[in-house]
């Protein structure tokens, strides 16, 4: 029997994934962030090593010195400064003096590609350094949530009845406590040491996996377990454990991947916001550098646009990358999956297609 398909290679998950250009772009974005994790230590040890600790993401300091004249009303910002601003760096300054002020935050330049923040630290280096904690938060949340959701949904579909009712009740209850909100409250309620990026990710994963992800996966598992090939396996004497492992699990993987990706987005935004509110001890992540930029710019009267834009763009792009990948994975889950009713080897299926 010849199966007519609308586009080529529907049985190949990789081809289905890359037939969506948005998914491919998303993968490139994630790879770029992974590259950032790798090159930061390399840069610190080679190119930036000779510069003292100018480029250190936490303790670095470098501020261009500007020689300016103190005046009452500023007409030329490049050579003049008003009294109030001058007294931030030199308390004895008065009108008519010529003083040196350190420009921080400094706008982007050749030595500092994204400028420096209010403490004179290199923003580019801080963004690079923030990639690793973000990956830890996102990936741990993704893995834990997928594991929890898969266990929940497969138990529901295999045992049904009481187990299913109990588990879906747990999901219903936890859904009322949105994971991002719960994590922000948790971060604010506990002292900072508990919420390392790893702990944050794992806790988020448990909450999100048992609620949102489990609800989505459960209905898919219940639909899968009704399909004829499960009955066939059961009739031929397969045990419940074998069914769950060999027949149900492969069908859950694409949707579990989609759920993983949305956990990444939620966890990263929640972690960024908790850091933005200074609820985390970690000072090198993207939320925390924005918190410092905004908090201190209110004191100095200069708004650190470069830090805000860089940090927000980093978080948003990171999430967008994962979201775009999830669109491709959805194609794999819903369209490619139709062709993969069985877990027979590829050559058998190709034979079937030909006849």
């Amino acid at each position: 029997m010849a199966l007519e398909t609308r586009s080529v290679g529907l049985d190949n998950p990789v081809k289905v994934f890359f037939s969506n250009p948005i998914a491919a772009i998303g993968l490139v974005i994630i790879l770029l962030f992974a590259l950032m994790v790798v090159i930061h230590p390399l840069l610190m040890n080679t190119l930036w090593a000779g510069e003292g600790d100018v480029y250190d993401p936490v303790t670095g300091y470098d501020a261009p010195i500007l020689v300016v004249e103190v005046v009452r009303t500023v007409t030329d910002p490049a050579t003049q400064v008003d009294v109030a601003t001058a007294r931030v760096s030199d308390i004895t300054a008065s009108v008519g003096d010529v003083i040196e002020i350190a420009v921080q935050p400094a706008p982007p330049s050749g030595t500092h590609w994204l400028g420096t923040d209010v403490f004179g630290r290199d923003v580019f280096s801080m963004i690079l350094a923030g990639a690793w904690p973000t990956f830890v938060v996102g990936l741990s949340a993704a893995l834990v949530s997928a594991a929890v959701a898969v266990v929940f949904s497969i138990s529901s579909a295999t045992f049904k009845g009481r187990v299913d009712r109990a588990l879906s009740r747990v999901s219903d209850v936890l859904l009322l406590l949105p994971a991002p909100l719960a994590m922000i409250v948790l971060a604010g309620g506990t002292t900072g040491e508990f919420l390392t990026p790893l702990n944050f990710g794992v806790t988020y994963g448990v909450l999100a996996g048992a609620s949102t992800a489990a609800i989505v996966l459960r209905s898919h598992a219940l639909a899968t377990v009704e399909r004829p090939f499960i009955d066939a396996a059961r009739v031929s004497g397969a045990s419940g454990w074998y069914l769950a492992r060999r027949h149900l699990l492969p069908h859950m993987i694409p949707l579990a991947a989609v759920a993983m990706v949305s956990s990444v987005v939620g966890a990263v935004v929640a972690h960024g916001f908790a850091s933005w509110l200074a609820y985390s001890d970690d000072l090198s992540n993207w939320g925390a550098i924005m918190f410092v930029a905004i908090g201190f710019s209110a004191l100095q009267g200069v708004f650190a646009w470069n830090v805000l834009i860089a940090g927000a763009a980093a978080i948003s792009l990171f999430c967008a990358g994962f979201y775009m990948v999830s669109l491709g994975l959805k194609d794999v889950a819903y369209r490619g999956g139709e062709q993969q009713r069985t877990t027979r080897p590829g050559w058998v299926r190709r034979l079937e297609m030909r006849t």
Partner: protein
Amino acid sequence: MARYVLNRLLSGLLTLFLFVTVLFFLASAVIPGDFVTSLGIMSAEQSAGIREQLGLNEPLYLQYWSWLTSIFTLSLGDSFGRGPVWDAVRDALAPTMVVLGVGLLIAFVLGGWLGRTAGYRERSLFAGSATIVAIICLTIFPPALAVAMEQGIQRTAGWWSLGEIAAFDSELWLGSDLSPSGVLWRMFFAFAITALFLWLVETLVWRFARRRIPRWVFLIGMVAVPLMLWSQMGLTGRVLDLAGTMSLLVIAVVLLTFGEVLLVTKAAMDDVMLEDYVMVARAKGLPEHQVRDRHAARTALLPVLSRFTVAIPYFLTGLVILEVVFGASSGGGLQTSGVLMRFHAPAGLGTLLFDSLGDQDTPLLLGALLVVGVITLVLRIVLDVLHAALDPRIRFGGEPNGA
């Protein structure tokens, strides 16, 4: 149908009870110290006295019992710092409901329309750019969006400067005993009365004249009658003032949520367009807009609704984040710093949540989280019932799958 709704409500009540229990014990287990430790340094006798007074010395199960009874009597107990929890929650609930309701409605209509058009013309420039804009809006970091909006409006300060739209018009509010949330609750009341009235008229006309009232009459009625009621109650000036202060928040909510609606609608449309009945509709020679709006879009609405049931807690979280960053206040206290000018929409749940977190005011925190849970639950039940009403398989006595 009535049986389904009743079942759903009962199961919702059980879920709510379990949620309350989980919330209480989680909060007691997780939050270190208590309200007294946040008061600052004092002698051991003093703090013991205050603990005694607030009932913090009682065993956990007694505290749990008193919280349960306070929920059943709807008082939600007393907060440590600011009177009965229910009063604080009621004041915070009204602005949140307005912002979330109006924002989600706009996002749903806008995103649904864009997504339908984009899904219908799958490989076009419009579909591609709509998808990209939606992904940007969906993944933008909410606090950064809020700060950028604030700064943007402040820089282009013309007639629509933040100062003008942000702060309350003090002359309007100082001399009266009406608080912003009081006005908002009166607005809801007027809306509810109108809806009830129109429903009654519709039923009576159908019962005695066997005629349906056209839909545009309802739309005009739902706008005109509340406006009349508001001006009768003398609220018009205050309503306009509130609309001004809350508009920024509503715009931000729309920006954050319409992307999700667009993408889900588009994906659902993509799938539906390949179905056989769409081909049949075309083969019958129906005009394209009818194929799109009647045959495809109506079925595409179902997955959008089920996606919403899972996404609503996240929308709520986004709103909470926005509110905290915008620094909504209950009026009065000016928080203008040199750079970030705070705007003064009435304080909603987000502000309440973070204030109570800062004070370690556990009853207030629990109350706020409880209300977040109840909103989610109510919206979820409403969406489930809507889903059942739209899906012919469930409407005619089948079992809803999933959810």
